[in-house]
């Protein structure tokens, strides 16, 4: 039993978060909630990346008056920093589009905003 359960729980948490994000994107019709779904998906990837770079007993990779111990991996942190900014940018743009759609159709339902189909 212990053999089966020994594994990488933090990563599982990140992947479950990804599942939640995909769930929202699939089942929620509200456009604002779709934006939230994308934000959650992005956070899950960030969490996954940061978790990958952890070292047991690690400290932040900054030498200024650093305590003893191994440093956690810096590259993933840079990647996450990049991805956070990208997520912010994406959210801002989608929200502005949502506002425009709401002005035009008066609704936030993704079922109602389908002028184009077939």
């Amino acid at each position, binding site marked *: 039993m212990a053999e089966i359960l020994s594994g990488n729980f933090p990563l599982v948490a990140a992947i479950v978060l990804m599942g939640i994000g995909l769930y929202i994107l699939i089942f929620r019709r509200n456009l604002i909630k779709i934006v939230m779904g994308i934000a959650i998906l992005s956070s899950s990837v960030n969490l996954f990346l940061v978790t990958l770079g952890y070292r047991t007993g690690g400290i*932040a990779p*900054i*030498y*200024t*008056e*650093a305590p003893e111990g191994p440093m956690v991996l810096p590259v993933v942190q840079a990647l996450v*920093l990049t991805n*956070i*900014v990208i997520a*912010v940018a994406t959210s*801002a743009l989608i*929200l*502005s589009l949502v*506002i425009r759609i709401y002005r035009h159709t008066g609704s936030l339902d993704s079922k109602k905003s389908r002028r184009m189909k077939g």
Partner: protein
Amino acid sequence: MSKIVRTVANQLMLFVLVFGLYVIVHGHVTPGGGFQGGAVIASGVVMLIVAFGSGQIKKSLRERRLSVVESSAALLFILVAFIGIGTVFFYNFLVGSRIFGDIPPTGTNPGNIWTGGVIPLMNVAVGLKVMAGLSAAVLALALFSGGEEIE
């Protein structure tokens, strides 16, 4: 918002600015950097927008001016990268020179702000850019949902 909120926001903005600038300038020595500091200042601007309303803020903070600041900061950033093209694009040409050129002792040290080569310059550029950009985006969203259209 009520007068209390407005006054407190007004006073707090100074501290937000100082803290944001600290985070930007010390980006290469302590945790933080251009993005984080710029986001701190931009969140201060958001606080002002919430407290005073977007119409009031618009009088002193035009999004046209903000986008000029943003473009210039982005230009500064890419130009610093371009200067390195004497050797290679993005080459850190200031390490070992007289400007921000000190090399910190290997291992744990108390920190020296006169280090990092082009990193502090880029931090400042990115900080300005993020500050102006995020404020402009939030201001545009706020103004538009308040019924005004952006020029």
